[in-house]
């Protein structure tokens, strides 16, 4: 594969990772730590929102982020033809 395509593949990879990590940072450090008291003013069911993010919501988002990453990268690998072949070790 020529280097320009390799570079394009890597740039897309970094873009995906960058966006996903911004979300990761926002829910964990943002919602659950830095702005937890502000979010706690909002309530749903028996939870204060900030507390819910700190003890429940962030973890759900983390799981989702990895599966989105898996989906995006598999699509990217196919698009650039760099996916592993069958039986490729």
């Amino acid at each position, binding site marked *: 594969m020529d280097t320009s395509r*390799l570079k394009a593949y890597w740039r897309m990879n970094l873009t995906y990772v960058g966006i996903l990590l911004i979300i990761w940072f926002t829910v964990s450090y943002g919602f*659950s*730590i830095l702005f937890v008291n502000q979010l*706690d003013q909002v309530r749903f069911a028996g939870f204060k929102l900030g507390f819910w993010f700190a*003890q429940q919501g962030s*973890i759900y988002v*983390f799981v989702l982020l*990895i599966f989105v990453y898996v989906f995006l990268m598999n699509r990217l690998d196919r698009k650039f033809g*760099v*996916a592993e072949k069958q039986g490729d070790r």
Partner: protein
Amino acid sequence: MGIQAWTYTLVFLSFALYIGIAIRSRAKSTSDFYVAGNDVSPLANGMATAADWMSAASFISMAGLISFMGRDGSVYLLGWTGGYVLLALLLAPYLRKFGKFTVPDFVGERYYSQAARLVAVVCAIFISFTYVAGQMRGVGVVFSRFLEVDITVGVIIGMAIVFFYAVIGGMKGITYTQVAQYCVLIFAYMVPAIFISILLTGNVIPQFGFGSSLADGSGTYLLDKLDQLNRDLGFHAYTSGTKGTLDVFCITAALMVGTAGLPHVIIRFFTVRKVRDARLSAGYALLFIAILYTTAPAVAAFARTNFINTIHNTPYSEAPQWFKNWQKTGLLDWEDKNSDGVMQYFGDTGEQSASQQNEITVDRDIIVLANPEIAKLPNWVIALVAAGGLAAALSTAAGLLLVISTSISHDLLKKVLMPKITERQELLYARLAAGAAVIIAGYFGINPPGFVAQVVAFAFGLAASSFFPIIILGIFYKRMNKEGAIAGMVTGILFTASYIIYFKFINPTANNSENWLFGISPEGIGSLGMLINVTVALLVSKVTPAPPEEIQKMIEDIRIPGSASETV
């Protein structure tokens, strides 16, 4: 059947299962022993990683810690799950493509340096030993409480089981026993949680019960009730925090980055067939971990409510049986300070009058173990918790022992000291090293150095300030060279280790927020150590020569899943 008969039955059955699996999956080559022959399916690896990761601390201690810390306990929930996002996005796929056996392998080859490899070996062994001692201790505690055998006997039984499948099966045996152990431990965790959620809130799913109103018909939300109880007794409100924001931030970061840098977790991603499997299995791993980690805070809140309601203002003569059972272990106690024969439980933030003296001392670790008894659940559920705790401790211990054994046989002997040994000899040394490591770990389990708990902060801090930044830079920054990497690792570790040693061992009386650097506790200092590591590495690499051509080629190669030559 009584609790003990049930416990013996369940523990025996689960042990028989692990041994059966171990015999079926014997390691025949070093590749089997180190990375299970690269032949583990993503789903199986996800479960194995979850069991590998969730230790006695996750299973036994975490809900108890949160129960007493309230919102401050979120650092463990966030830190020990958020690290998997880093692992999945930044490490796992590339290390799988690199395709060697150990973490020091990567460090040594990427930085074309035996010195870098040796620093990595020392870190890996130190991190793993501190961690494994705690697991063995957990095994001993479960045995002594539930089977009423001596802690020493408990540790020896645990050692024998781990010895069996780690030495015979290596990574292959460990992987498939970990799959079974995950099933045992998650079942054991969820059953009591679901029971208690139904009893307390009428909701079958603990994660929802956590935010529901109480089943007593009052219409009050569980968490509001708990805030109220906590405040009335002079504790801070359950859903509010007391720690400084920067400290919480740093502890969370150190735990996250430490998680992603722990060698026994990283090494699991070497065992799958392909890069895409490594990505997917990281997703499965966190999914399986999240089942326990989203239940734990619910369990913590339920247990806290039940504990206060059953204990506070109850005459000792009417104290439930479990209270007296746990009193015998010394982990729970009552001292009748005002001699009224009634148990009073108070925190220290209320105004202290003669009528507000706390009479209860309680060890946080008993919360999960005693929870089913507190909620009056059937005997088999109580016994299940013992089997689950053992599964959690044994699975983690096995993963750690493997790291120790491969670091010695592969990185130290084969790659540095005795490069001429054959594969058969290397496999023999791997087994010997695993056996020796089990015995040393058992010794620390029986005679725990008084500082096991403090030392855990060490393991995470060191992983955060040594491996994580160096691996990330190695993948994402082609220009990083061996001089930068070694300088970064060494300064990162020295800074973190001396900070922790100073506050934990040399001058423990100064261990409070007034003396801490920027108000960061020793638990959180690893995140600063990581920044120092990165800064030093970048500066040093700027003024020293770029890495050789073939290393830069190798980095380009690990960045794509397939091989570059095939994909014209």
